[in-house]
C-alpha cells in the first residue's frame, strides 16, 4: 500500500482529540430541576455498566472515525484490484541499462530492479496500447508487450551512456505522433545526475513544446547509490613510446567515497604487470610501464573491484618505436647539435644508419624539423621548397617580441619564451589540428604530415629554450615524437562517433573483424576494448573504446532537479515499486481506498450517532398505563 498524499497521515494525530476532549472539557453540567431523581438514580444503578461500555464504544468509534478520515485523506492505493483497466495509452519505456546500471546495491543489481519494474508495466499493458522501449542504445523499438518482455529480460548493462533527457524528448515525440489521446513516458533509471545531459541539471527549463503536458513517471531504486570508484583515464604518456618504456597517466573518479581514501591502481601491458600506485579518491597518477619491444601494445589500468565492476578497469593502446636516427642539417647553432649528442648519449636518438629525422633550415625527403634560416635572405628559398613539398605552411614576417609559448600538447615547452620569431602562416585555408604551440597568439610550432615547422631558431638570441633544462627533452620530442607523428591512437566512447584515418579498411579485435572506411565517420563498437585500425594487412593505428567517465559518477539527480528539467511535463518521481505501479497508466492500475475508507468512516459515524442517541439499552415496549 502506498499513500498518494502521505503528509495527510499527520492527521492521525487527531485520533487523540476525542480522548483529550473527554479529559479536558469536563465541566460542571447544567442543573435541571427534576422531581423524579429517584427514578434516575434507580436507572443509573441498573445501567451503570452498560453506560460505561457505551461510552467506551463511543470513544473507540470516534477515534476510529478520525483514523479512517486521516487515512482517506492520505489517499492509500493498492496495486491491481478491480480498477486495473485503463484507456489505450502510448507508452514509452526508457530502460536505462547504461554502464552504471550494473552497480550492485544491497545485493541487487540496479538493472534487475529496473527490469522488474519494466516487466510489471509490460504485463499491465493491454492490447490497445502502443509500447516503445528505449535502452542505452537510444533506439526506440515498438513491439508488442510480449516481445518487449523478452527484450527486457535479455537486457544487460551496456557500456553506452544513455542521455535520459534526449530519451525523454524522443519519447515525447513518439507519443505526440502516435495518435493516442493518452501517453506516458516511464523512465526507469538509476537517475545519474550526469545522465540528464551535460551540465544541464538544474533550472534549465526546456522550451520543447512537445513535453507540454506529457506524463513522465520516473522510477529509481530506493536509497542512496553505492559508493563507486572507477578508472576514468588511462592514457600513455607520451603517446609514442621509445624503446625503454613510457608511462600511463591514470585517473580515478567516482562518487560517494571518502575524500581521504586511497585506491590502488595497477598497470598491466600485454599481460605483464607494470607499476602499481595509490591514487586519491579523485585524482591522477602516472604509472611506469615495463620495457616493451617495438610495435603496438595494449594494456589496462585496473582498480580493486567495487559495487560497479564495469568501470574498474580501462584499456589503452600504445606504439613503441626504437629511437629515431636524427641528424642536423644546415646552420642550427651549437645548442641543437649538443642536444642531439646528449640525446644520442642517453640512447634517445640514434646516430648511425639511415636518417629518419632531420632538423635544420632545409627541406629534404622524410621526416623534417624545419627551423628558420640564420640568414633571412634564405627564407624565400626555404618557403618555396616547403611549398614544393606540399607543406601548407610557410615562414612569414620576422617579429621581435618577448612572448611566452603556449603549448598544451607539448609539455616540454611549458614556460618557454621567445624574443624573435617568424610568423608561421598557412598557405591556404588554415589546416585544423596542425598548430602545436603558439607565441603571441601566432602559430610557433606546426606540423603538416611529417614536417614540423618551428617559428624561431633554437638559439639564445631568439628563445630562452636552449638555456633551460627543458631544451634537450624538447629536441628529443621534436625528433622522436613530433616529427615522426603521434601514435595514431583514437579514443571513442562506446557507440560514439569516430572519424577513421585515411587508408583504414577494417577494425579488428581479438575475435572479430569489422569492415570500415577510412576518412569517414562511423559508430564506435559498443563493447569497450582496443580495436586495431587495419589498412589491408597493416595496423595503422588503434581505436580505444572506453566507457564515458561520467558513468562512474553515480550521484543521483534530485527530484527537484528532475522536475526543473522537464518543467512543462507532468513529472512524478518515486522510488517505491508500489508507488510506481500505482501511478502508471494514470493510476488505472491501482485501487484507491479513499472511497472505501470514507464509506467506512461514514458507517462508523452512523453507528456512533445511533449509539449516542439510542444507547445500548433495549428499547422498552410501549407501555399503556391505563388501568
Amino acid at each position, binding site marked *: 500500500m502506498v499513500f498518494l498524499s502521505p503528509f495527510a497521515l499527520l492527521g492521525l494525530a487527531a485520533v487523540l482529540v476525542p480522548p483529550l476532549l473527554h479529559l479536558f472539557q469536563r465541566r460542571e453540567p447544567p442543573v*435541571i430541576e427534576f422531581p423524579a431523581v429517584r427514578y434516575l438514580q434507580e436507572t*443509573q444503578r441498573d445501567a451503570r455498566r452498560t453506560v460505561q461500555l457505551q461510552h467506551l464504544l463511543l470513544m473507540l468509534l470516534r477515534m476510529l472515525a478520525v483514523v479512517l478520515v486521516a487515512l482517506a485523506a492520505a489517499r492509500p492505493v493498492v496495486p491491481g484490484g478491480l480498477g486495473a483497466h485503463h484507456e489505450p495509452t502510448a507508452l514509452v519505456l526508457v530502460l536505462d541499462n547504461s554502464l552504471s546500471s550494473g552497480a550492485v546495491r544491497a545485493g541487487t543489481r540496479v538493472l534487475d530492479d529496473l527490469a522488474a519494474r519494466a516487466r510489471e508495466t509490460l504485463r499491465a499493458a493491454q492490447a490497445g496500447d502502443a509500447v516503445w522501449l528505449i535502452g542505452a542504445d537510444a533506439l526506440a523499438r515498438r513491439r508488442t508487450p510480449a516481445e518487449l518482455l523478452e527484450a527486457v529480460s535479455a537486457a544487460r548493462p551496456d557500456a553506452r551512456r544513455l542521455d535520459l533527457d534526449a530519451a525523454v524528448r524522443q519519447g515525447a515525440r513518439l507519443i505526440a505522433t502516435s495518435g493516442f489521446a493518452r501517453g506516458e513516458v516511464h523512465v526507469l533509471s538509476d537517475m545519474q545526475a550526469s545522465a540528464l545531459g551535460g551540465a544541464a541539471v538544474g533550472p534549465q527549463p526546456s522550451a520543447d513544446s512537445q513535453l507540454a503536458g506529457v506524463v513522465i513517471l520516473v522510477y529509481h531504486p530506493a536509497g542512496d547509490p553505492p559508493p563507486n570508484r572507477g578508472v576514468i583515464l588511462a592514457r600513455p604518456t607520451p603517446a609514442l613510446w621509445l624503446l625503454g618504456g613510457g608511462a600511463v597517466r591514470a585517473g580515478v573518479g567516482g562518487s560517494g567515497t571518502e575524500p581521504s581514501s586511497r585506491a590502488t591502481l595497477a598497470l598491466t601491458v600485454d599481460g605483464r604487470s607494470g607499476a602499481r600506485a595509490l591514487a586519491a579518491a579523485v585524482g591522477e597518477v602516472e604509472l611506469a610501464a615495463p620495457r616493451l619491444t617495438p610495435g603496438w601494445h595494449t594494456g589496462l589500468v585496473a582498480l580493486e573491484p567495487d559495487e560497479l565492476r564495469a568501470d574498474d578497469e580501462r584499456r589503452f593502446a600504445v606504439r613503441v618505436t626504437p629511437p629515431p636516427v636524427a641528424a642536423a642539417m644546415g646552420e642550427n647553432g651549437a645548442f641543437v647539435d649538443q642536444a642531439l649528442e646528449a640525446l644520442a648519449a642517453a640512447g634517445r636518438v640514434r646516430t648511425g644508419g639511415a636518417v629518419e629525422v632531420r632538423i635544420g633550415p632545409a627541406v629534404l625527403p622524410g621526416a623534417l624539423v624545419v627551423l628558420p634560416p640564420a640568414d633571412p635572405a634564405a627564407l624565400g628559398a626555404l618557403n618555396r621548397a616547403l611549398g614544393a613539398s606540399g607543406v601548407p605552411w610557410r615562414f612569414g614576417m620576422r617579429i621581435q617580441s618577448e612572448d611566452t609559448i603556449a603549448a598544451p600538447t607539448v609539455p616540454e615547452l611549458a614556460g618557454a619564451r621567445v624574443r624573435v620569431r617568424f610568423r608561421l602562416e598557412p598557405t591556404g585555408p588554415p589546416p585544423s589540428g596542425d598548430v602545436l604551440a603558439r607565441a603571441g597568439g601566432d602559430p610557433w610550432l606546426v606540423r603538416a604530415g611529417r614536417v614540423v615547422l618551428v617559428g624561431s631558431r633554437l638559439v639564445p638570441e631568439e628563445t630562452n629554450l636552449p638555456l633551460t633544462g627543458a631544451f634537450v627533452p624538447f629536441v628529443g620530442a621534436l625528433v622522436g615524437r613530433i616529427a615522426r607523428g603521434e601514435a595514431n591512437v583514437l579514443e571513442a566512447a562506446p557507440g560514439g562517433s569516430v572519424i577513421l584515418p585515411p587508408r583504414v579498411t577494417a577494425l579488428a579485435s581479438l575475435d572479430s573483424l569489422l569492415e570500415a572506411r577510412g576518412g569517414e565517420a562511423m559508430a564506435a563498437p559498443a563493447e569497450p576494448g582496443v580495436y586495431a585500425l587495419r589498412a589491408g594487412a597493416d595496423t595503422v593505428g588503434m581505436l580505444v573504446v572506453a566507457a564515458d567517465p561520467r558513468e562512474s559518477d553515480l550521484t543521483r539527480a534530485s527530484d527537484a532537479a528532475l522536475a526543473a528539467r522537464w518543467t512543462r511535463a507532468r513529472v512524478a518521481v518515486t522510488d517505491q515499486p508500489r508507488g510506481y505501479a500505482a501511478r502508471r497508466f494514470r493510476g488505472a492500475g491501482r485501487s484507491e481506498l479513499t472511497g472505501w475508507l470514507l464509506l467506512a468512516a461514514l458507517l462508523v459515524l452512523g453507528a456512533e450517532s445511533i449509539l449516542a442517541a439510542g*444507547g445500548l439499552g433495549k428499547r422498552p415496549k410501549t*407501555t399503556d398505563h391505563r388501568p
Partner: protein
Amino acid sequence: MALNRSGRLDLLNPREVASLGGIEVVARGVVEGFLAGLHRSPFRGFSVEFAEHRPYQPGDELRYLDWKVLGKRDRLYVKQYEEETNLRATLVLDVSRSMGWAADPEKTLTKFDYAVRLAAALALVLVRQRDATGLIAYDDRVRTVVPPRARSGQWPLLVRELTALVPGGLSAAERALPRAVELLKRRGMVLLISDLLVDRERSLHAMRYLRHRGHHVTVFHLMDPGEADLSGPAEARYVDPETGDSVVANAADLRHAYRTTVDGVVAAWRRACRTSGIGYHHVSTGTPFGHALRRAARSRARAG
C-alpha cells in the same frame, strides 16, 4: 383556542383548557362536557331505600326519573336513595413541591395545576350528586382540611380552598392519609391525587389502613410527560426540588433504561394497589381531564 367539534372541554388539552379561566370555570366546563357524554351518573349506585329527590342532571339514568313528579309538576327530578346520600368522598391532594413541576410549562400544566383542576372537577361531579365531598391537602404535613359536606355551598368552598393552595414542601402521604381516616368517620370514598414520589411501602401501608376501615380508595398517579420520558441536554445534573438529591446523567444514554424504570414503577404501584383492593390510575398531565374523570367513574362503578 380552537375547540373540538363537540366543544367538550373534558376532551381538550388540559393546558389549553386551563387557559380559559380559573379553576371554577375550568371545572364546570370539564364536568359539563364529561356528563354530557355519559348515559348515567358516574359515581352513583342506587338502592331501594328512597331518601329524596333532586333535580335531574344530564347523565342521570332516565329510569330513575320520578315520572309522577314530572306528571304533576312538569319538572324533571330523579329519586335518590339512602345509600347514595350517605356517600362521603374525600379528595386527598398532594401539594408537595414536586407537584409544582412541569417539564415544559408551555405545553403541559404542572402536576399541581392539573391536580387542582381535576380535584375541582371531581368535587363538582360529586357535589352535584349531593355527595358529601371534602378535601385534604398535604405535603409533609396536612395543609388544608375541608370536611365532607353535601350542602350546596360545598363546591365553592372547595374551589376557594383549592385556589388558595400552592405547592409546598416534602411529600408525606403516610402522614396525610391517617389524618383522612380521622376525618372520615363513616365509610366513604377516598380519592388520592399525587405524583407518588414517596416511599411506596409506607404510603401503601396507610392506604391499606384506609381500605381496611372500609373506604374505597382510588389513587390518581399523576406524571408529567417529561417524567415518563427522559429528555434533556447531553449531560446535566438533575436535582430533586424536594430533597435536594442530585444525579449527573446523560439523557441520551439513559433514555430507554429510564423508561423501563418508570414502567416498572408504574407497574409496581398498579400491582400493589390491585393486591390491596385499591383503585389505581396512572394519569399523564397531558391527558384531557375527561379521560381521568372517566377512569375514576369506571372504577367507582366497578366498586359498586
